């Protein structure tokens, strides 16, 4: 096994092109578990810790470009305002020690359906992009095209994740996760929700309840229709129990979970409906307050 230590992003891309089977490592919170248990013996390890620009983020007012290695602890501390859904998801990742090391790039690279970032990224909208680069150039991959299967993403062998581009929130966002305790749990299932009043859409993201993280498309369309047709974006008025219930049912129907050690498929479906109703209610209450205080 080789240990590759590029000092710059260009060196990292060159190393990945030369060693396409090299396993990138940044925070190590996934990769080292596999190495410690000898699950995986890659030809080479490509350490990205020296590439300091991966730990930087920028915000141009419309979009946050989040470096792949910005640790969750800093997402919570520095980006709760512009990226509230992702920051809430980050709070549920592992433990303080894990949040000091792990970042969204690793979550995307591993592409586990249980990764905590994914539901928040999906809910943040269809204009979330993974910035992937290789010596051949840079690709902006829409988040909806990124996940291909269980622990599979659409990266080419010579590509590395440079950053993820997430629109700055223009409405309330929420994240909810089921686990056996508050800390150190892999999600039994998770749900992200966001209101996007500027373009009159809503975003959803389902975690740990399908082969990939997935959007509840029909639930989004249903709610968007209701909010628009009934003038609720303008009024911020009550949604009514029927709408909340229906939204929960559509989220539940969008999942295709399995029975496994963390929970049954039935439980996951049930829990998703509950989380969908709760996160919608929390967000809508916040939105209503904003409308009323602006009036």
């Amino acid at each position, binding site marked *: *096994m*080789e*240990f590759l*230590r590029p000092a710059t992003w260009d060196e990292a891309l060159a190393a990945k092109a030369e060693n396409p089977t090299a396993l990138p*490592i940044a*925070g*190590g*919170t996934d*990769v*080292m*578990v596999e*190495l*410690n*248990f000898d699950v995986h*013996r890659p030809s*080479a*390890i490509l*350490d990205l*810790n020296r590439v300091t620009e991966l730990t930087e983020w920028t915000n141009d007012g419309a979009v946050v470009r989040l470096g792949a290695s910005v640790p969750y602890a800093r997402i919570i501390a520095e980006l709760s305002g512009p990226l509230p859904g992702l920051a809430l998801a980050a709070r549920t990742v*592992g*433990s*303080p*020690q*894990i949040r*000091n*090391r792990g970042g969204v790039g690793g979550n995307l690279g591993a592409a586990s359906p249980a990764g905590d970032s994914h539901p928040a990224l999906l809910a943040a909208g269809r204009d979330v992009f993974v910035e992937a680069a290789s010596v051949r150039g840079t690709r902006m991959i829409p988040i909806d095209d990124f996940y291909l299967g269980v622990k599979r993403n659409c990266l080419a062998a010579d590509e590395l994740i440079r950053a993820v581009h997430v629109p700055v929130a223009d409405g309330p966002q929420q994240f909810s996760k089921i686990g056996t305790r*508050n*800390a*150190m749990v892999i999600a039994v299932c998770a749900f992200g929700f966001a209101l996007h009043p500027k373009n009159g859409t809503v975003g959803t993201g389902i975690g740990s309840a399908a082969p990939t993280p997935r959007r509840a498309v029909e639930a989004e369309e249903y709610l968007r229709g209701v909010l628009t047709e009934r003038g609720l974006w303008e009024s911020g008025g009550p949604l009514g129990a029927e709408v909340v219930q229906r939204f929960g049912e559509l989220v539940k129907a969008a999942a295709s979970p399995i029975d496994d050690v963390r929970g049954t498929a039935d439980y996951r479906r049930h829990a998703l409906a509950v989380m969908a109703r709760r996160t919608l209610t929390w967000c809508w209450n916040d939105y209503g307050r904003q409308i009323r205080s602006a009036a």
Partner: protein
Amino acid sequence: MRVTFTANGKPVEADDVWEGESLLYVLRERVGLPGSKNACEQGECGSCTVYLDGVPVCACLVAAGQVQDREVLTVEGLAGENGELGLVQQAFVDAGAVQCGFCTPGLLVQTDALLERDPQPGDNDIREALSGNLCRCTGYEKIMDAVRLASVRKCAARGTGQGAGQGTGQGAGQGTGRNTGPGAGKGGAE
């Protein structure tokens, strides 16, 4: 491969390091620092918590090659040069927060980091900070006492405040429990 880094203020060098090896293995088996414990090897238990460039991390999840030219502070580094226990270490001894001791090194480093950031944490802050450190002996209550005691002593040494405590009477899971009450809270008084 060879890895050189700073451990507890001293330059160290490890030879014949396997490329997939963890920092924890290097510390314990190659550079004579077995204080950090190897329990789960998957970041679940926190027993191997060390500072990496001032940030607490699980040493089992850091690849050895990633610490090249960087600074590591282990539980051994919390004690003084002549071996006298550091403030947090002494508080754990005095509060009876150690039973089998396997989780203790990680708890000490994580507590040290907590009190550096916030010398007067509320109980919920303490529980959150230590949520990645598992103890299977104590039931955590003596550990809570030890952190409150360390907080009181640290604040006394700095001449500020009253240390951590039980908060303002909120139940667990509610509010931040920021201390406004007297002294060190339950069992924390010296």
